């Protein structure tokens, strides 16, 4: 019998061509009892390998191939000796000293200690090298190999590096004689028999056993072409040039045990020894030795008792009065938390939240944690799950045996980074790390790489990559042959067929390791003993080698610290509101501080704004689809916002639940339930399931599932569906429903509802957390618009709209803006004493941040342009942009005069004036300069002042926005004569009327759920108009629609339930009128 002990997967990143699951499936098919995975310099694929192996009944063995270099010291010594030698003998060296390439040492984990040592070794290797590089030295292995078994192969024959047998000798010394094996491989290559014989002789000389291995790189011989393509990518070359870097044959596949036995028929011991060694390698990843850190509690307390106490205190603060339902729920949760020994986890998250509070960083728990009353009491979440009747089992259940998942939303940018660095500092660089994000090959990247490897022309590759998955939407004709024919490739040709095959095989193969946006894992003790750590590209960040799903699978607890632009905007807006001297803008008559936690509930202005879909800039409810639903849903209470947040999601849209809900809400259709027993669950959503929690409850009520089973059902229907698991759960569901007397059509209806919805469903708790932010943003927009828009502008990019749209929306709400002025503007936008927003220097295109901040810090006014340039180091292009946008007008110029003077200010001064820098400027100089400046001002510029159209063009060119009139306003008279309606006029026009509208394109959307329809938003001086473009019209006028900044649209007006849109019939570009030069990039969502 034979066991394969040397097998690499695609997680060796370009050095293996099969996913771990494929290798395991093949191993199970071939009857292997066990299989070892040795990926290059890591255990990246180990969790998936482990999971797949357990379900296939194959024992997983873990190891890795470690890159080893000669010791730096030794190489240095060798170099010095060579140089000395050459000097003494006076004979020049014949050949230059070549750097010795690293070699690979495969190691296998015999015990948990071995696994820990492996993780530590890999961490040591990775942490001292840039991302993607690194190698160990033999000295690194000293004392760090307990529990590891080394396989030494052909690298032992490199006598010029180690001397004859030197490597085996060193390894025996490091690992111990009983934990070194000499491996022999046969790939039907000439010369390998000689090497193998030498290896056998070496093994005999050092009394170490010989073991046969396959050196597997892919599951089946069919994968060899893909392996060659990956090799090309690895070496940055193509197949025609790769030469002998490609595989010499297709023999590195997982061979049947019998074939391996036959191949090594002359060395039966080497084959038999694989089984012996397998018996020794008893370590599986079932126990990683991971422990979540203990939270330090006061003396006499345990973590559980301490949690109870602070939860009690928090609950009394939160619940006023602290009613019985809340008390009972909290007690139930605390019992379960104690039983599952999760108190420490809650305390640590609570600690992070406290850090945020103490450092004035806004924080809010989201996701399923919002289902927990304990989290609410501890201040981790802001939604009351008892009042909202949220399902706790969605968060935590005894049956699942999993760690809960708490996600914290933080303001994006520096404040989130401070929290992350706090966690690193608190738990140590080797005690905390970000989770990884495995980047895989997808349509576009795979097309590019395969195309390059096959030597397809670069222009064709570019076109190919562009058409592969350019749009989110894929219709039935959106197939690979169609893409290929689009770029002029014929699927009948051999080369193109080969491209298609390889492109297909490459999908989902790992490409490289990225960093997850916010997932952090922390550990009691050393995390590097649990999973290898490595440097991220971003300085100061360390990542684990597993992604968040793998971490969860392996029982490693993750806390998501997610950055949310709106959190940052809200916090900034509140700071502005609370620090303004007298809060003169406030309309509510309150004199106290405005606090997010204590906003007045059910503010009528907020609901009025939402019902009118006046939601540009608001969190989650600002998109075109949301704005089209709001006037129909007409929110009147907080729960309506929760529904609104959740309803425009792929789940309800694909499940066709939006219209039934809206119709029932409008009384156009009766409220019915799939089964009477489900009425309590679906009553709040009028019989239409909208949330994941409802799905869980349906399963619990209709089929008698426990909370844990229901959560299992939800997960089984998630993105990574397993047919087998689905079938099992479906039959359980049917059985359960039959037991409750639900069968036939009713049962089918329920199952269909669950099936169609589960994939994209939205948790109610998550929607509630988001709804809170949506409410807060609406409240600030309604009552403190200047502060709100100012904060939004300072946190771009975020949200659905371009800053220019935000400015126009603010102006329509009466907010006034002051232009950028080098004498007055800060780097960020600010609200001035008169309540107007002063645009910040951050909006000057091409202005370096450090220069912008220096300008803002110079609180002493600049006396002249020369003074400005001398004190801030502005470059010519920056000064010209500032002049062009009117930021120098406070010197007494108009824009053109400023441009005229700016050109002179930045010209080299010549030798006479080189010493006249800011530091040597005396009072006398200053006086003289000012005199000259005044003379300069009085001399009129020979240039004509800009026209309004020119100013608008300059604004868009220099700041991407304008606070002047909208470009469309300049053309209004002319457009009116052409019968073009204003956006505001559409609201009052008759449904079905033919209309003509025109405007600047601010968004283009082609959502995956819209069957190829394209949605445009056109903006004019009165507001926005929504345009719906049929797929055939889009295909016909694609270039006009995607390239023209201004469009003229003829179509039919749809004006129903307060929602207006124009169904386009003819679309053309709008040219002329002086604003055709406006440079504006719409937000495109393809």
């Amino acid at each position, binding site marked *: 019998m034979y066991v394969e002990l040397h097998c690499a997967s695609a997680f060796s990143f370009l050095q293996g061509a099969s996913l771990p699951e494929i290798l395991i499936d093949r191993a199970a098919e071939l009857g292997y009892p066990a299989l070892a995975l040795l990926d290059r310099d890591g255990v990246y694929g180990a969790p998936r390998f482990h999971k797949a192996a357990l379900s296939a009944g194959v024992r997983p063995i873990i190891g890795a191939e470690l890159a080893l270099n000669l010791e730096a010291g030794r190489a240095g010594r060798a170099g010095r000796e060579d140089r000395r030698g050459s000097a003494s003998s006076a004979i020049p060296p014949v050949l230059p000293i070549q750097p010795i390439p690293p070699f690979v040492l495969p190691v296998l984990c015999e015990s948990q200690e071995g696994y820990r040592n492996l993780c530590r070794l890999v961490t040591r290797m990775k942490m001292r090298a840039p991302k993607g590089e690194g190698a160990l030295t033999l000295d690194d292995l000293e004392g760090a190999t307990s529990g590891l078994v080394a396989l030494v192969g052909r690298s032992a024959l490199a006598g010029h590096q180690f001397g004859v047998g030197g490597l085996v000798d060193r390894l025996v010394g490091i690992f111990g004689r009983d934990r070194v094996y000499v491996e022999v491989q046969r*790939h*039907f290559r*000439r010369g390998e028999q000689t090497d193998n014989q030498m290896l056998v002789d070496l093994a005999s000389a050092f009394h170490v056993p010989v073991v046969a291995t396959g050196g597997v790189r892919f599951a089946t011989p069919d994968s060899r072409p893909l392996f060659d393509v990956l090799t090309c990518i690895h070496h940055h070359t193509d197949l025609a040039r790769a*030469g*002998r870097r490609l595989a010499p044959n297709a023999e590195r596949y997982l061979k049947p045990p019998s074939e391996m036995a036959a191949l090594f028929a002359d060395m039966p011991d080497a084959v038999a020894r694989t089984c012996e060694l397998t018996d020794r390698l008893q370590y599986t990843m079932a126990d990683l030795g991971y422990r979540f850190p203990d939270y330090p509690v006061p003396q006499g307390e345990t973590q559980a008792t301490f949690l109870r106490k602070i939860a009690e205190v928090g609950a009394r603060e939160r619940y006023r009065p602290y009613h019985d339902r809340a008390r009972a729920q909290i007690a139930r949760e605390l019992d379960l938390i104690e039983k599952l020994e999760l108190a420490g986890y809650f305390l640590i998250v609570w600690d992070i939240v406290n850090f945020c509070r103490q450092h004035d960083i806004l924080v809010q728990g989201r996701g399923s944690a919002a289902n927990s009353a304990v989290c609410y009491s501890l201040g981790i979440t802001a939604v009351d799950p008892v009042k909202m009747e949220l399902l706790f089992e969605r968060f935590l259940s005894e049956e699942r045996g999993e760690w809960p998942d708490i996600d914290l939303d933080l303001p994006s940018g520096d404040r989130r980074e401070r929290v992350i660095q706090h966690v690193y500092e608190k738990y140590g660089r080797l005690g905390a790390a970000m989770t990884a994000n495995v980047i895989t090959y997808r349509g576009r990247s795979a097309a590019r790489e395969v195309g390059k490897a096959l030597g397809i022309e670069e222009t064709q590759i570019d076109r190919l990559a562009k058409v592969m998955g350019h749009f989110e939407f894929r219709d039935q004709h959106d197939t690979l042959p169609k893409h290929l024919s689009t770029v002029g490739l014929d699927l009948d040709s051999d080369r193109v067929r080969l491209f298609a095959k390889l492109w297909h095989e490459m999908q989902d193969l790992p490409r490289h390791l990225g960093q997850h946006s916010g997932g952090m894992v922390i550990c009691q003790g050393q995390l590097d003993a649990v999973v290898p750590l490595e440097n991220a590209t971003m300085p100061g960040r360390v990542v684990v080698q597993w992604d968040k799903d793998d971490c969860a699978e392996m029982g490693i607890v993750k806390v998501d610290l997610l950055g949310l632009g709106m959190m940052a905007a809200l916090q900034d807006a509140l700071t502005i509101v609370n620090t303004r001297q007298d809060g003169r803008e406030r309309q509510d008559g309150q004199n106290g501080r405005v606090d997010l936690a204590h906003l007045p509930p059910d503010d009528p202005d907020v609901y009025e704004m939402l019902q009118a879909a006046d939601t540009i800039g608001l969190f989650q409810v600002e998109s075109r689809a949301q704005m089209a639903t709001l006037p129909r849903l007409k929110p009147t209470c907080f729960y309506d916002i929760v529904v609104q947040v959740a309803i425009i999601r792929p789940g309800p849209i694909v499940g066709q639940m939006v219209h039934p809900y809206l119709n029932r809400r409008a009384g156009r259709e009766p409220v019915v339930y799939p089964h009477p027993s489900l009425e309590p669950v679906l009553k709040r959503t009028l019989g239409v399931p909208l949330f994941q929690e409802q799905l869980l409850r349906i399963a619990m009520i209709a089929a008698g599932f426990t909370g844990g089973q229901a959560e299992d059902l939800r997960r089984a229907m998630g993105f990574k569906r397993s047919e087998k698991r689905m079938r099992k759960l479906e039959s359980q569901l049917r059985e359960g429903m039959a037991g409750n007397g639900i069968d036939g059509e009713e049962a089918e209806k329920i199952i269909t509802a669950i099936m169609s919805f589960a994939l994209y469903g939205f948790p109610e708790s998550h929607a509630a957390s988001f709804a809170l932010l949506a409410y807060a943003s609406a409240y600030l927009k309604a009552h403190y618009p200047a502060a709100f828009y100012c904060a939004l502008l300072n946190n771009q990019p975020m949200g659905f709209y371009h800053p220019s749209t935000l400015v126009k929306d603010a102006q329509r709400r009466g907010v006034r803006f002051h232009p950028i002025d080098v004498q007055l503007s800060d780097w960020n936008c600010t609200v001035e004493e008169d309540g107007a927003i002063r645009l910040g220097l951050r909006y000057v295109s091409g202005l370096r941040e450090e220069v912008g901040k220096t300008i803002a810090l110079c609180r002493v006014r600049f006396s002249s342009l020369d003074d400005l340039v001398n004190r801030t180091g502005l470059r010519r292009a920056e000064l010209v942009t500032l002049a062009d946008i009117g930021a120098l007008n406070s010197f007494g110029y108009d824009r053109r005069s400023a*441009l005229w003077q700016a050109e002179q200010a930045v*010209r080299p001064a010549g030798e006479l004036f080189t010493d006249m820098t800011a530091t040597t400027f005396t009072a006398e100089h200053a006086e003289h300069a000012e005199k000259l400046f005044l003379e300069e001002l009085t001399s009129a510029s020979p240039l004509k002042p800009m026209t309004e159209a020119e100013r608008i063009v300059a604004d868009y060119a220099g700041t991407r926005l304008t606070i002047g009139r909208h470009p469309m306003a300049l053309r209004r008279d002319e457009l009116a004569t052409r019968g073009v309606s204003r956006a505001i006029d559409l609201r009052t026009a008759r449904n079905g009327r033919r209309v003509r509208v025109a405007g600047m394109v601010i968004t283009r959307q082609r959502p995956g759920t819209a069957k190829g329809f394209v949605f445009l938003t056109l903006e004019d001086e009165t507001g926005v108009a929504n345009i719906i473009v049929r797929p055939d019209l889009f295909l016909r006028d694609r270039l006009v629609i995607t390239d023209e900044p201004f469009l003229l649209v003829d179509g039919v007006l749809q004006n129903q339930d307060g929602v207006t849109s124009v169904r386009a019939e003819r679309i053309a570009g709008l040219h002329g009128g002086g604003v055709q030069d406006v440079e504006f990039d719409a937000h495109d969502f393809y």
Partner: protein
Amino acid sequence: MFACVYSPGYDDHRKAREARKENNIENSASSACSAVTVVAQQFSPRYETRGDLVVIDVRGLDRLFGDARTIAEELRREAADRGLRVHVAIAATQTAAAVLAIARPGVVVVERGKEAEAIAPVSLQILGVLDVALQIEILKRWGLKTLGDLAALPADELSARLGQQGLAWHAMARGADVRPLVPDVEAERFEASLDLEWPIEGLEPLSFVLTRLLEPLSLRLEQRDRGVAVLHVQLRLVTKETYARRLELPTPMRDVKTLRTLALLDLEAHPPSADAIAIDRVTVVIDPTPGRVWQHTLFARPHPTPEQLSTLLARLGAAMGQDRIGAPVLLDTYRPGAFAMKPFATVHDHPAHPAFPALPASALRRCRQPVPARVVADADGRPLKITSDRRGFAGGAVLHTSGPWKTSGDWWIDGPAEKAGRAGQAGWDRDEWDVALSDGASYRVFVERGTQRWFIDAILD
């Protein structure tokens, strides 16, 4: 007084000229001058080609043709006769003439002193055509649209902002010249042609004709210290077809005998079609290059001169085919026996200690074309008996085998060998065996895995 001729389709002519240059027919007589330049040559030797337009010094032409308008009309007529539609402008300055020729169709004549006024309404963009360094963005930002706008700016202040360059633009905007006319000088051509009274056939008489053509050319080349980089030989056949050959030389040379020999060898290897070999006109055109400086040394081993080596290689090429001359080099591939021919290069400095690979213990004589064989194999594919119909390859029972060695590659090159891949071959996938036969011979044989056909690949000595 300057006339400027601008052909709006001139770009196309230029592109065509560049295309011809790429195809190395730049020096052919018909393409030497562009049509617009030829028009200019008809009027004055003092003309300058500036990209798309030609500026001609027409001072004194009034005595030949009449007033400025008449000259302009003549220019236009001359161009029309050559199939060109051109704009013509005449002004006292080159700049004004150039601007107006580009901006205004037809014929424009400007009185002396009214240049600035005439060009004032023209768009500033035009300066971009005349001056590649124009920073049009600055001027656009200043709101300037026409040359008149620019001309209206005070020169001293413009100079303070844009320096000398700005002054130059300002002058141009006023129609003033910023540099004198630099007349084109025609490049010297090395070309000779001979019309034969009687058509000749065969290479021997051609040899005399070539010598007669090359000798004066060689003399001219020597006088100007030039050598031949490319030799063009054009033969007009009695069928009125022209047969042309192009011969690139490895080093500049001008030895008539060598040039003649190389040309003849090339024609021998690539003769005109068999049914029309009578020649009635021979033309030789030479692409010149700076001459070679040759310094002999006492310390280097004497070696053949480039002339000798080129002649030898040309002779070998004519006999064997050009692609079969050179030194064999191994290719970076696992394909058994793959090699390519690299052109010979004269290497004067050999490394002091070349690293020779260890010699194999036994010699392998590879069959350049694998020899088909009949093989009886066992269930594992191991050959038991090998025979071949090819003479010289005995067959017999296999006494010893070693293998199989599996090798495959170039899987992405599909189809037969003529589809070309590396070394002109398609992908391969084969199992190799080294066998010792009962008749004492040892072979390397292989079986193609796809077709299961056996071949003898090499003889092991």
